């Protein structure tokens, strides 16, 4: 039986927009298993980014419960949530969000430094990850000297170098061209298939959905469809 990585029960989240309540999530129940490659899709305002942020501990629900790798997020303080993100969750953002003053290699090493990993092990792991993503030639370059696709690959390297239980990607292909998108999706697919990494991505992009093994569609803050593709 497959291990549950994320368990969401009765999640609700409401925002105030000019004193008018906006219901971002209205009772979402979902379980994500180890090795799932999940796309959260739906129109703007459907709640996919809100769900992703709540799973990642960046936002807190008004109601319901989230359990990530056996940890109930509602019981954690802000600093404990930061600790959880640091050790168990990898993030890939739409705008790459690399640290502009650090090189590609340093950006990847950075997260290991935050974890307190020793310099030799840090260097070995970041070099290995950059090599596996074909970034060894540009590891000394700073983000400003890399293309959008290269920056997103560095961001993925940074997200996976800690070997997280869960990789969350929010519109990871929104700022890159279609050729680079395919390349990145193949990379995520490879990580999912070969390393069994659990990946959840919020997306509008049908190409992204075509790569995922499980497609969850949201509408008005509720799950409209949850279908698993047959993996060949």
């Amino acid at each position, binding site marked *: 039986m497959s291990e549950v990585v994320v368990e969401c029960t009765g999640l609700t989240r409401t925002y105030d927009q000019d004193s008018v309540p906006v219901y971002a999530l209205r009772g979402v129940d979902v379980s994500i298993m180890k090795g799932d490659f999940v796309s959260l899709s739906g129109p703007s305002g459907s709640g996919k980014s809100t769900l992703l942020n709540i799973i990642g501990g960046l*936002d807190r629900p008004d109601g319901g419960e989230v359990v990530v790798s056996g940890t109930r997020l509602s019981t954690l303080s*802000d*600093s404990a949530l*930061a600790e959880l*993100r640091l050790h168990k969750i990898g993030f890939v*953002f739409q705008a790459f*969000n690399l640290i502009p003053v650090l090189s590609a290699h340093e950006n990847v090493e950075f*997260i290991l430094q935050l974890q307190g990993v020793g310099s030799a092990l840090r260097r070995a792991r970041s070099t290995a990850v950059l090599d596996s993503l074909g970034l060894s030639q540009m590891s000394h370059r700073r983000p400003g000297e890399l293309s959008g696709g290269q920056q997103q690959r560095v961001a993925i390297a940074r997200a996976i170098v800690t070997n997280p239980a869960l990789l969350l990607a929010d519109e990871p292909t929104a700022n890159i061209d279609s050729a680079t998108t395919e390349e990145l999706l193949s990379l995520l697919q490879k990580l999912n298939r070969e390393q069994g990494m659990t990946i959840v991505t919020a997306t509008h992009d049908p190409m992204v959905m075509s790569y995922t093994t499980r497609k969850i569609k949201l509408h008005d803050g509720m799950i409209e469809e949850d279908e698993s593709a047959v993996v060949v």
Partner: protein
Amino acid sequence: MNIKLLYQLSVRNIFRHKRRNIMLFAAIAVAVAGVSSMNTLIRGFQADMLDSAVSNLTGHLKVYAPGYRDDPSIERSFRLEDGFQPDIPADKLLGWAPRIRVPAVIMSERETRGVQLVGVNPEAESISFLADVPIDGEGLSATQDDRILVGAELARQLETKVGRRLVIITQGADGLNRERGFRIAGIYDAQGTGLEKIYVFTGLARLQQMLDSDAITEISVRLKEEPQKASVKQLLIETFANMEVMDWQELEPQVAAMYLFADGAIYIWFILMMSALTFGLVNTLVATVMERVKELGMLRALGMRNRMVISQVVLESTIIMSVGVVVGLLGGYLIYLSMSDGIDLSSFSAGVEMVGMSTHLQPVLLVDDFVLVASMSLGLGFLASVYPAWRAVKIKPLDAMRH
């Protein structure tokens, strides 16, 4: 906490805005150089005031007979045993001088003036301004010397010169007036200070003969270091149980007040200069934080703890301040070196005399002052980073990512 990581991030963030931070470094350096070089002038002013005060026959400490200060006459005097030596450790004592000082009237053929007639042992007066003062003619040679030394201004007023005789009238130990003629051995030039008009010197033994007394009216003690005066004062109080023992601050309260004010002026000057600068530093740091809202939010989203975010902002501020302080102190030192020959204040001689200074201001560099400026500046740098750091940790990762 990974200090190396924080340092790396902070340094690179500083280099991110080279022009803005170079301007900030320059502003800090100029302020620190200004404060530290000004401190050398204030210390010079202080040292000059102290030197003038203790050289002006006052010494660091003085022993008087009770009541002498209110009624300065030979009746208020005391005797020293033959071969008396004050029981002061040699590492503290620079020298001591017994004196008689009595009010007198001095007359030339043309003019009459009121003066203080001082009987001195010329050898012991190495502790007073007499040791260094330029003399036209000769100085006194011994306690038996029956000639007098007069100041240049008094000689001008009396319309007399070296070799002429002057008549001095004063009151003897028996309460009767004594009158004697003295030949002028020399005319001392105390750089236009009031000393020239007040003090007339002669040999101590000769003055005792004139007054029919073997007593003295004061002992002046000069120490190697000013801060030693408290412990030595206690020794003198024990030695001269029935006498009045006073330090230079009690004898020259106006100078002492100016001396203390100079200490305060160092802080006032620092606060004025650095406060304005601190606002600039806070402004720059806040701008730096606000420019990096998204980045700081992302760092926190990735798991950077609040204390690391705070540490990064504080470290950036400290690095900026440290570089500015080092360059500023170097600048201050170079300014001090450029003034090492002293500053000629003779154009303001009337004014500087009023505050007990000479017309030559010699800057004095105290390492403690440089350390004080450096530590206070770094303290301000730390304080300046508190608000920006608070702003940085108030950033919510999710809000910042949407920024």
